[in-house]
C-alpha cells in the first residue's frame, strides 16, 4: 500500500513539475469537434491542423524558434460549449478558431472587446470580407458567397442568363451556416430569372432526408446545390443515389466535398461535384514532411488513409494560414512572441503568392490570394472537384467569383450588422 502511495506521489510530482520547463510558446487554440453529429467532418480537419503545427515544431523547432501550441477545446459543434471554450482558451491565445457559424456569431462581438483575431478560413459570414466593419475577423481565402457564385457559374456554363426559367434547389442545413448563401442566391435568381428553391434540412433530420428528396423528386429541379455538413452530407448523397438523382446535376460547397461522405456511395456518386479552395497534393513538400515527421513517427491522431483526403489537407492549409499570419507579424514587429493584436495585422497582410505557396511547400494545394486591410477574404477563387468513384479530381481551373454581384451585398450586410449591434466600432485605419 505504502509503495503504491509513494509511486502515486512521485508520479503526481512529476506531472506537476512538468510546466516548470515552460518556454516561449505561441498559443493557437482550436475549438475543434471530434464528437457529436459533425465529428466526421471535424476530425480530419482538426487532425490536419494539429499535424501541421507538430510538423513545424519537429522540423523547425516551431516558428522562428518559438514552439506552436495547437491546444484543442472540444465543442461538439455545440454553441453552448463554444462560449465556454472561447473563454477558456482566450487567455494567452494569439488567435481563435470558432468553427461553427453559430459560435462565430457569439464570439465575433466579443473578439472586438478582447482584441483577439478570429481565423475562420472558408466559413463564418461572407460579410466578414469587409475589414472595416469586421476588424477582427478573417475568412480567407474564399467566402461562401464566392462559393455560391462559382457554383452558379459552373452550372450555367459561365453565363448566369443560361439559367433563365430553370429551377435550382438549395439543399441546406437549417442552421446559420446553411442559410449563409441564400441572400446572394435570391438576388441572383431575381436578376437572372431562375427559380431558387431552398430546401432546409433540420439538425434532427440529417440522417433521414427522405422528405427532402421526395420534394426534390416532385419539384424536379434542374440542379441541386448542397450546403451540407457532418452527417447531412452522407445522408443526402445516399438518398440521391437511392432515388437515382443524376449526380452531374448535384453540386456542393467545399464542406460538402468530403471523401468519407462520398465513399459511402462510392461508384454511385460518380459525377458529383464540389467547389473547393483546396486540393490534396501528397507530393507537396509540407505534406511529405508531415508524413515523415508526424504520421510515420506515430504522433498523429489521423486514421489510416485519412492523409490523402481533401479535408485532412484542408486542415493543414488552415493551420498554414494562421501560422503565416503569425510569421508576417513576427517579421513586421521584430519580435518572436507576438501578441494577438500584432497577429491581427499579420492576418491582414497575408500574401499567399505563387512563390510563397511553393516556399511553404504547399504547391498546388491552394490558389494564390492576398488579404488587405479592407479585404479580409482575399478571394483566391476555387476549383471544381469531381468525384470519380474513388477520389476527388480537379475538374476545372481556378474559377473566380462574380465580384460585381457580391461586393455591394457585402457592404449592405456589413452595414446591417453594424446597425443591429450598435454601437459597433468601425475601423478608420483603411480606406
Amino acid at each position, binding site marked *: 500500500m505504502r509503495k503504491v502511495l509513494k509511486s502515486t506521489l512521485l508520479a503526481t510530482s512529476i506531472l506537476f513539475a512538468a510546466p516548470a520547463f515552460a518556454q516561449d510558446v505561441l498559443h493557437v487554440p482550436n475549438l475543434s469537434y471530434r464528437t457529436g453529429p459533425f465529428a466526421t467532418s471535424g476530425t480530419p480537419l482538426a487532425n490536419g491542423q494539429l499535424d501541421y503545427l507538430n510538423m513545424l515544431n519537429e522540423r523547425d523547432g516551431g516558428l522562428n524558434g518559438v514552439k506552436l501550441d495547437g491546444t484543442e477545446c472540444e465543442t461538439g459543434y455545440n454553441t453552448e460549449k463554444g462560449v465556454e471554450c472561447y*473563454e477558456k482558451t482566450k487567455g494567452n491565445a494569439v488567435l481563435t478558431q470558432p468553427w461553427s*457559424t453559430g459560435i462565430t456569431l457569439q464570439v465575433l462581438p466579443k473578439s472586438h472587446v478582447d482584441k483577439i483575431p478570429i481565423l475562420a478560413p472558408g466559413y463564418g459570414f461572407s460579410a466578414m470580407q469587409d475589414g472595416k466593419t469586421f476588424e477582427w475577423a478573417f475568412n480567407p481565402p474564399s467566402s461562401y458567397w464566392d462559393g455560391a457564385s462559382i457554383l452558379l457559374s459552373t452550372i450555367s456554363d459561365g453565363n448566369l442568363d443560361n439559367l433563365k426559367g430553370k429551377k435550382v434547389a438549395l439543399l441546406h442545413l*437549417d*442552421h*446559420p451556416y446553411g442559410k449563409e448563401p441564400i441572400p446572394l442566391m435570391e438576388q441572383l435568381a431575381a436578376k437572372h430569372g431562375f427559380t431558387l428553391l431552398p430546401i432546409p434540412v433540420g439538425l434532427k433530420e440529417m440522417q433521414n432526408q427522405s422528405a427532402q428528396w421526395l420534394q426534390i423528386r416532385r419539384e424536379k429541379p434542374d440542379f441541386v446545390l448542397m450546403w451540407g455538413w457532418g452527417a447531412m452530407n452522407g445522408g443526402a448523397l445516399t438518398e440521391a443515389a437511392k432515388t437515382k438523382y443524376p449526380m452531374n446535376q448535384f453540386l456542393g460547397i467545399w464542406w460538402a466535398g468530403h471523401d468519407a461522405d462520398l465513399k459511402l456511395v462510392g461508384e454511385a456518386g460518380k459525377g458529383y461535384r464540389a467547389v473547393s479552395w483546396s486540393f490534396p497534393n501528397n507530393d507537396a513538400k509540407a505534406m511529405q514532411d508531415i508524413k515523415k515527421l508526424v504520421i510515420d513517427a506515430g504522433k498523429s491522431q489521423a486514421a489510416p488513409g485519412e492523409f490523402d483526403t481533401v479535408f485532412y489537407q484542408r486542415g493543414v492549409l488552415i493551420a498554414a494560414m494562421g501560422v503565416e499570419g503569425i510569421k508576417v507579424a513576427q517579421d513586421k514587429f521584430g519580435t518572436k512572441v507576438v501578441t494577438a493584436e500584432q497577429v491581427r495585422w499579420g492576418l491582414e497582410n497575408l500574401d499567399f503568392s505563387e512563390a510563397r505557396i511553393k516556399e511553404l511547400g504547399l504547391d498546388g494545394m491552394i490558389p494564390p490570394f492576398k488579404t488587405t486591410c479592407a479585404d479580409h477574404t482575399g478571394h483566391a477563387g476555387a476549383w471544381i472537384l469531381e468525384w470519380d468513384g474513388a477520389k476527388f479530381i480537379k475538374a476545372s481551373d481556378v474559377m473566380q467569383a462574380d465580384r460585381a454581384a457580391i461586393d455591394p451585398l457585402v457592404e449592405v450586410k456589413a452595414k446591417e450588422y453594424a446597425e443591429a449591434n450598435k454601437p459597433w466600432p468601425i475601423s478608420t485605419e483603411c480606406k
Partner: protein
Amino acid sequence: MLYRTAGQFKTTYEADHALFPVRQDAILLGVILTLAFVILPLTANEFVFKALLIPVLIYTLAALGLNILTGYAGQLSLGTGAFMGVGAYACYKIITIFPEVNLLVAIALSGFFSAAVGVAFGVPSLRIKGFYLAIATLAAQFFLVWLFEKWAWLYNYSASGAIQVPTIEMFGVVVAGPNAKAITQYYFVLGVVTLVTMLAINITRGRIGRIWKSVRDMDIAAELVGINLMKAKLSAFFVSSYIVGISGALFVFLWRGAAEPNLFDIPLSFRVLFIVIIGGLGSILGNYLGAMLIVALPVVLSYLPGALGIPISSSMVEHLNTMTVGALIIFFLIAEPHGLARFWAVLREKLIIWPFPH
C-alpha cells in the same frame, strides 16, 4: 454538535412556522449569500463567471420554473426549452422595437409572453395527465422551435436566422452585449435569481402552493374539497412559464449574447428536466444543487486533466466527462431517488442528532 437544536425554544406559532425554525439554517444561508454576493465576485475571474456562475444561476432559474409545474403541481412538461425561447425572442423584440426600455423591465415583460404561451399549451392538462400531457407539451416544443425558424419577423429578418444582443446600458452601466463586464452580468443575474427564488419560496409555502400540492397528490380529492382544478393547473402553468421565460431572456441576453432557434430545441428541455429530477422534485434548493451537478461539474471536470498535467486529447476529455457525469447521475439516483435536496435533508437530520444518535 454543529446543528444542535437543543435550547432553541419556540414559544409562538409564528416562530414554529418560520422559514428557518433552526437557527443554524439561517446562519448557513447567510454564509452562502455572503459567498455569492461578496466573496465569489471578489475572487472569480471572467472564465469562472462566464462558464460556471452565470450559467448555473440561469439554469437554476429555468429549473425552478419547471419545478413549480412538475414538482409542485405535478404536471409533467417537456416544453421548457421552447418556453425559454419565447422569453428570449420576446425580450429581443421588445429591446429592438423600444431600445429605450430598461432591460430589467424588458425581461420582466417578456416573461408574460411565455406565460401566455405556457397557459395556452397548458389547457390540455385539464383533460389529460402524466405521459399524455408530456406529449402535449412536446408538441409545444416542436411547434415553437419551428416558429422561431420560420417567422423571420422574430429575428428581424437577419440572414443567419439568429438573434444577437446589442449593447444595452442601464443607469450608465453596460449590462448586456459584448462590452458588458462579466461581474456586472453576474450581479444582474444573481439579483433576478435571488428575487425570484424568494417569491417562489413564498408562493409554494402559502395558500397557492398548498393548492398545487393537493392537485399533485390527488386531483380528485382536491376537487372534492373544493379546489378549482382549472385555476390551480393553469396558474401553475402561468407562474412556471413566467419564470422559465425570464430565465430564457437572461440565458440569451446576460450570458450567450447570440442565439439561433436550434438552441431552444429539445436537448435544452431535457437538460432542465434532468436538473429538476436530480435536484429533487418539489424542492427549491434542489434546483441549485441539480444545476451545479449538471452544468458546473462537467466544466470543472474538463479542466482537471489539464490542471493535473495529464496529457489526453480534448475529445477524450469530453468522452470521459460524459461518462463520469452519467455515472454520477446514476449513483446519486440510486443513493437517493428523491434527489440531491433530499440527500441534504437526510444529512441535516443526521447532523442534528449527531454525535448521539439515540
